[in-house]
């Protein structure tokens, strides 16, 4: 197994990544579920939706673990890319009729119709940048962004310092390795020349 410190270092970065950044927001209680649909290939404006799924949705899921977030990816790039938001404004507990779908990579989990007392907002996100999708999402759901705690700020700064330090160290090491390689090549050249000279002298 990889050493404890190395593992912990990698984990700390990932934890900070998922806790903060674009998409780290708490949804109001009237949002019951989210459905996202786009194509597997990016042609025709499916890049933004995919990036939204990869970069923003994990953060949203972390801060709202109770909200089902279903992603349906299909093969057909001609189909529209949509983001469907389900709201329940009467304050009743979020009860979903039938079995709740799970995410699919074969296009079978299409957006279900809203159940009794639910309303939906459908956003057409084809061709939009993921930042723009997030902006619209935040406006429609009126979610509140999560603020960094002082300790997390400090950790972020530490990681940034470490990254800068790493860049410097990488340069130094590269210089050393290159010098070693050059030395080796020079030696190999000299040896081969010497061997050739010896052969010709005989």
């Amino acid at each position, binding site marked *: 197994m990889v050493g404890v410190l190395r*593992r912990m270092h990698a984990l700390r970065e990932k934890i900070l990544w998922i806790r903060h950044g674009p998409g780290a927001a708490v949804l109001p209680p009237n949002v019951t579920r989210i459905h996202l649909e786009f194509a597997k290939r990016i042609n025709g404006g499916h890049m933004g939706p995919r990036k939204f799924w990869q970069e923003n*949705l994990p953060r949203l899921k972390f801060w709202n*673990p109770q909200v089902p977030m279903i992603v349906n990816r299909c093969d057909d790039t001609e189909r529209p890319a949509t983001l469907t938001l389900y709201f329940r404004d009467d304050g009743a507990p979020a009860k979903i009729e039938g079995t709740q779908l799970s995410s699919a990579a074969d296009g079978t989990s299409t957006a279900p119709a809203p159940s009794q007392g639910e309303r939906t907002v459908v956003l057409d996100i084809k061709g939009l940048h993921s930042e723009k999708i997030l902006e619209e999402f935040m406006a429609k759901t009126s979610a509140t962004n999560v603020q960094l705690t002082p300790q997390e700020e400090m950790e972020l700064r530490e990681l940034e310092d470490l990254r800068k330090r790493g860049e410097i160290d990488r340069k130094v090491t590269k210089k050393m390795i290159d010098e070693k390689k050059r030395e080796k090549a020079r030696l190999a050249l000299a040896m081969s020349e010497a061997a050739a000279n010896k052969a010709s002298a005989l």
Partner: protein
Amino acid sequence: MASTNQCVASMARLNLSYSTRRPAISTIPNFLLPSVATPQIRHASGSGGGGMRKRPEKPKKQYKLFRSYDQSEQQKFSLCDAMRYLRAFEVGKPPSGAKYEVHVKLRTEKAGPVVRNRIRFPYPVSSDTRIAVICPEDSPVAAEALQLGAVVAGQESLFESIKNGHFAFNKLICHTESEDALKKANVGKLLGPKGLMPNKRHGTITSDLKKTINDMVGTDEYRERNGVVQLAIGQLGFTPQMVADNLKVVMERMKKDMDAIVDNGHTKHLDEVVLSSTHGPSFSLNGKFNPTEDNVTVEQLQSTM
């Protein structure tokens, strides 16, 4: 430095009778001093050889145990906390494509017996077990095998399909009647690398098909490799309680295996338990269950992804 001081001291002694003034030599930097001013001091040990003595090369230290690390500074997580992170990392992945897995690191010898066993989970993890049985074609045994849920049963036809590279199964059993045929069929090279070759020691050459197949369906195998046991313990849709139950069963069974090995005079102890998922990072567990952060409840982690 020492030699310079000694030199200065001796010069001072020489000058003692003439003057008590310190010589101006101390203002000159050490490296500018002429070499004659710093006579070499020879020691008894260096007088014989001249140059560095060659020490016999130390043999490289061989560690008997796998390395274990100091975990005092490691951040550890409760099961629900780890699952909250993992569920977030796995968001939008189809549930069939991602699983929770556990890595159990052991403090153990590099050479010696390994932990290896089959386990039946309270909540089955792998739903996909396809069994093939090697037995005489169209015999009552074949009929029984098919009835018990085997996908293929046969002898020559099965060998033929194996040689053609068609594997419609992921578990293979051989009936004792067909043992010789299996040996003659020369398929070990194809089956061995996939871990499918029937073997008496593993109980996959058997005369009691019913028992073997029942053991196989819904059981998972685990095995220690490089001091770590890794196995899938839950589907992505499992609730924290389901994962906890499965994990408990694994740990209890593994404890028994380890105790048996320790009784035989080997080292085998639990070092660390790590939970991860197919696409997520790994979280070292602290053995607790409940979420630690405010406003997160176990119920919230039970919803559909």
